[in-house]
């Protein structure tokens, strides 16, 4: 019998569309001398003392699995860190799982909570993983279009209008990739008020929590009645410039953590040991690194916003993360065409906003995790391009 691959592949996998960013990066990979503002990761190497802790752990022979939920000392340090930086209290023994990046944390939460047919509310524009992961977990993703008019914040009214009897979960991803938007205490209070009337669980992706440039990040879990229904996904990638170490974690009440731990222990066993030792060092002695990198991003954020406005691309000053979401609507071509032509005609790469959801159409994401000189070079190319429009 002839092997028929089409009978092997389930539709739930084949129907997942490649992400819009992926498509764009493939184009980018084929070209030379491109000045890009595309990369969604810090441009700092991991601080040396953190790398060194990883190296030392290898020298000392820490090459074994750790306990499933992570080295106890690591979980204790995560608990200390969360209390110190954000005033949250989680029990190291029963409420924390060390994961392979923030991505696994998100996947765990969805897989542990979703039953087929459950609705998951996903405000967009947002990072590209929520919708496919929710679908894989059996959920029906309900996307909510946030609006540029109020800085891409989720409002209580919008949330209320999306809730049905089937709503299981709300995904809150602020500070937001790609818009740089953050939710203030008042926004969160209003959202919490809507949620208190329901049985909805919140998955709060707080990977950019350290990168806010006005008020300090506030987690929805710190609001009355919210901790009991919230799973926080966080990690080391953005705050400590540790993307390649793949270190993340979940913070959630014991009854959620116990269930997620089953998936983690069978699917992953334990997160990479070397990375855990490096992360312990980051948590103990890395606060100054966070402040240093944040001050740098903050300065570049001002530079890129000022430069974009100077060349005639209206851009609001984002409050968090390291992206600006530039408004291209006045140029009369859609964002994908804008970005493709900018790439082909002027060798400058930025990511079309529609890659992050329909409500991102007409915008583009520019990362400012680049040196000021690089930012100037890219802006000069964008300026040349828009003169031709």
């Amino acid at each position: 019998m002839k092997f028929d691959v089409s009978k092997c592949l389930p539709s739930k996998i084949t129907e997942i569309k490649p992400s819009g960013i992926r498509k764009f990066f493939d184009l980018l990979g084929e070209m030379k001398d491109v000045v890009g503002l595309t990369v969604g990761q810090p441009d700092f190497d991991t601080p040396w003392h953190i790398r060194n802790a990883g190296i030392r752990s290898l020298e000392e022979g820490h090459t074994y699995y750790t306990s499933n939920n992570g080295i106890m000392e690591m979980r204790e340090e995560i608990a200390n860190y969360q209390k110190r930086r954000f005033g949250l209290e989680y029990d190291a023994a029963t409420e924390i799982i060390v994961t392979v990046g923030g991505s696994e944390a998100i996947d765990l939460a969805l897989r542990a909570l979703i039953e087929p047919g459950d609705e998951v509310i996903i405000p967009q524009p947002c990072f590209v993983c929520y919708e496919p992961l929710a679908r894989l977990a059996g959920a029906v993703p309900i996307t909510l279009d946030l609006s540029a008019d109020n800085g891409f914040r989720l409002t209580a009214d919008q949330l209320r209008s999306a809730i049905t009897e089937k709503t299981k979960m709300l995904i809150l991803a602020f500070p937001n990739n790609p818009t740089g938007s953050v939710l203030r205490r008042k926004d969160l209070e209003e959202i919490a008020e809507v949620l208190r009337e329901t049985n909805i669980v919140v998955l709060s992706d707080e990977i950019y929590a350290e990168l806010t440039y006005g008020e300090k990040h506030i987690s929805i879990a710190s609001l009355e009645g919210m901790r009991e229904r919230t799973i926080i996904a966080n990690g080391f990638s953005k705050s400590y410039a540790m993307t390649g170490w793949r270190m993340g974690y979940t913070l959630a009440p014991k009854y959620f953590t116990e269930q997620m731990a089953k998936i983690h222990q069978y699917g992953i066993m334990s997160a990479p040991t070397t990375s855990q030792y490096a992360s312990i060092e980051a948590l103990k002695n890395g606060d100054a690194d966070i402040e240093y990198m944040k001050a740098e991003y903050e300065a570049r954020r001002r530079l890129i916003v000022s430069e974009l406005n100077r060349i005639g691309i209206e851009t609001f000053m984002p409050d968090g993360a390291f992206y600006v979401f530039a408004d291209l609507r006045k140029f009369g071509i859609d964002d994908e065409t804008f970005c493709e032509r900018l790439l082909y005609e002027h060798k400058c790469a930025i990511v079309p906003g529609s890659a992050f959801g329909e409500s991102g159409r007409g915008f583009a994401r520019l990362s400012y995790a680049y040196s000021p000189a690089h930012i100037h070079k890219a802006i000069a190319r964008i300026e040349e391009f828009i003169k031709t429009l």
Partner: protein
Amino acid sequence: MKERILAYLEKDSRITSSDIATMLGVSEAEVKAIIEECEADGTILGYRTVVNWEKTGKNGVTALIELKTIPQRDKGFGSVAECICNFPEVKSVALMSGGFDLAITVECANMRDVAFFVAEKLATIEGVTATATHFELQIYKENGVVYGTEKTDKRGNSW
């Protein structure tokens, strides 16, 4: 604010006042005023370029000289140090703790010139009791810049 402006300039002396102003969220006039003040009061001593001369094929010899000296009445080590500063081949002079007193870096065309400098110019200064000369073989890092490594963006294109 002054420290932050100086930190930007120390890292890249060609950065514009306008960029510094934007990045720090203050007016360009304020940045310019602070820089002028620092230039006037000697906080900023100059603007230089970090050059890897090896790439140009220019040959030269750099030596670190440890120098022992007898402190002079009223002036301590100052008078010997000031005297040494006058030689154009001297790049730096610093008073050190430990086994010797002054650390001196000199740059000459060849080893013979260094030897001549030490024997004829340094050793003859009043108060100098001993010198030890070490030749620099290879620079790995200078002024905060690691040599020989071109900075490439190591980041993968994922998201």
